[in-house]
């Protein structure tokens, strides 16, 4: 415990066990162990290393005796045990003999396996497996916003890390010797015991802050995935964001809850959905629907949607296990990377259209109110640009939509000027009032690309129109 108390700094836990590889980055200090990020490979472990040895032994035997031992269940079992034993021996010895007498038989009589395996050969057989642990380490560092040089200590966990080559690879990447202070086989049990002590109240000076592995959010206008909780956020956690309606007089919204990292909602995992009804008739973008994600201490996700004007609220509870498995999480993260470029384009496409749409709506509204207060020339220019933007939305060419949006924004500035003059004429103090922050959102603001009204409205709240 004294050892733990003194610990301070950034630690990497490199866990290469029997079946999976996990790398975690933690920030440690004042007894608090804060997980910053995690990554890994759910299909990489000691057993994969054994397989390489088994293949090698079987190949050697086949070359020598012409018999494929892999077709023989009993022989295979013995090979498996021998491979594991050899692997372990080669952590301390530089070579070992694999002796399996009477491994099989054919018409000519019994056959024996006798193969010499060196440490160098083993390292060659598993080199790609070892190298494949580097990428997750890189990604975990990136997620944590750190570089290898920021790491103070590397801890090896899992029997497989006893292999000298593992230490070498880890040292090569992090540029420091892994810590020798812990027994890699015992460290997991120790950690579990300490955490049990914390939960029971026996261990008072240690706290583990774990994180949620994947982002959580809802589907919004155009099918995009709007995150409310980013992956690697410390749990328990609670986050809220205010959304609004996409159509005039929209009476209900459907909240579809997704888990994942893809930009388009349906590429992620749907965890659940519910409707909030009874929204009083209002122009689109007016209602304030507050969506809250609350992950409690048991890992249960509570999602609620509340109409701030009526106080009406609906919610669902999603079990922690209702999400993705470790395998699925890993696949999700990988898929997101592979599709990053394409996803980004899709999202930008949706955002461009949504923004243009909102601009058309707002401009028409303002023309009605302020059209008289500007010159015929200016007004006619705005009307032309407005028509061109509407046409471009029909044609669905993103570049042209962007171009026409720009043009309309520019020409509409004349109207903006007229509006400000108008307001200043009415209010002696000339107080524009609200800042751009949404006063109702208590947490870190999420920048919203849909908001383009700053030129025209004095009250501007961060909002994304919600799909009905």
């Amino acid at each position, binding site marked *: 415990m004294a050892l733990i108390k003194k610990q301070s700094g950034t630690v990497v836990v490199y866990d290469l066990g029997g079946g999976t590889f996990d790398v975690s980055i933690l920030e440690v200090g004042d007894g608090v162990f804060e997980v910053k990020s995690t990554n890994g490979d759910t299909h990489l472990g000691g057993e994969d290393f054994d397989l390489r040895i088994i293949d090698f032994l079987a190949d050697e035997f086949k070359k020598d005796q012409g018999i494929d031992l892999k077709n023989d269940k009993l022989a295979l079992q013995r090979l498996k045990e021998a491979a594991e034993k050899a692997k372990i021996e080669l952590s301390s010895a530089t070579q070992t003999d694999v002796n399996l007498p009477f491994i099989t038989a054919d018409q000519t009589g019994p056959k024996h396996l006798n193969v010499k395996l060196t440490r160098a050969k083993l390292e060659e057989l598993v080199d790609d497996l070892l190298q494949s642990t580097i990428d997750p380490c890189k990604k975990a560092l990136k997620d944590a916003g750190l570089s290898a040089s920021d790491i103070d200590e590397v801890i090896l966990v899992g029997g497989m890390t006893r292999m000298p080559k593992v230490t070498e690879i880890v040292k090569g990447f992090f540029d420091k010797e892994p810590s020798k202070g812990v027994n890699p086989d015992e460290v997991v049990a120790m950690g579990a015991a300490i955490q049990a002590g914390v939960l029971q109240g026996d261990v008072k000076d240690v*706290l583990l802050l774990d994180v949620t592995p994947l982002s959580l959010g809802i589907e919004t206008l155009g099918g995009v995935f709007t995150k409310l909780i980013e992956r690697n956020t410390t749990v*328990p956690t609670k986050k809220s964001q205010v959304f609004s309606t996409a159509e005039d007089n929209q009476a209900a919204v459907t909240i579809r809850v997704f888990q994942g990292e893809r930009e388009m909602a349906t590429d992620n995992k749907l965890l659940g959905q519910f409707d909030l009804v009874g929204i009083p008739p209002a122009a689109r973008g007016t209602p304030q629907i507050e969506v809250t994600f609350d992950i409690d201490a048991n890992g249960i996700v509570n999602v609620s949607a509340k109409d701030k004007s009526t106080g009406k609220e609906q919610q669902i509870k999603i079990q922690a296990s209702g999400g993705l498995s470790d395998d699925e999480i890993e696949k999700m993260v990988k898929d997101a990377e592979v599709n990053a470029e394409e996803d980004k384009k899709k999202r930008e496409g949706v955002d461009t259209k949504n923004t243009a749409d909102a601009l058309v709506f707002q401009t028409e509204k303002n023309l009605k109110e302020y059209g008289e207060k500007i010159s015929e020339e200016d007004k006619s220019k705005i009307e032309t640009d407005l028509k061109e933007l509407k046409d471009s939305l029909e044609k669905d060419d993103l570049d042209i939509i962007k171009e026409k949006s720009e043009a309309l924004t520019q020409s509409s500035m004349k109207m903006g000027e007229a509006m400000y003059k108008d307001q200043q004429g009415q209010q002696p103090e000339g107080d524009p009032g609200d800042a751009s922050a949404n006063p109702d959102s208590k947490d870190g603001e999420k920048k919203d690309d849909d908001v383009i009204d700053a030129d025209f409205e004095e009250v501007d709240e961060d909002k994304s129109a919600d799909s009905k």
Partner: protein
Amino acid sequence: MADDFYNTLGLSKGASDSEIKSAYRKMAMKYHPDRNQGKPDAEKKFKEVSNAYEVLKDPQKKTGLRSIWTCSF
């Protein structure tokens, strides 16, 4: 609103990064549900503390806060 984040962590506005981190850790120790079994208020407080820390520890978010502040006419 920005005051709330500093208040939540029991800090004054000029607090340094290390003060912010230290305050967060103390608060986390105090309010985390693992150490407060069966106390829903503690869990609620922990979430607020986490959110405050998330904003204050991130230079970009912190700057965003400040520019909103100084914007008041």
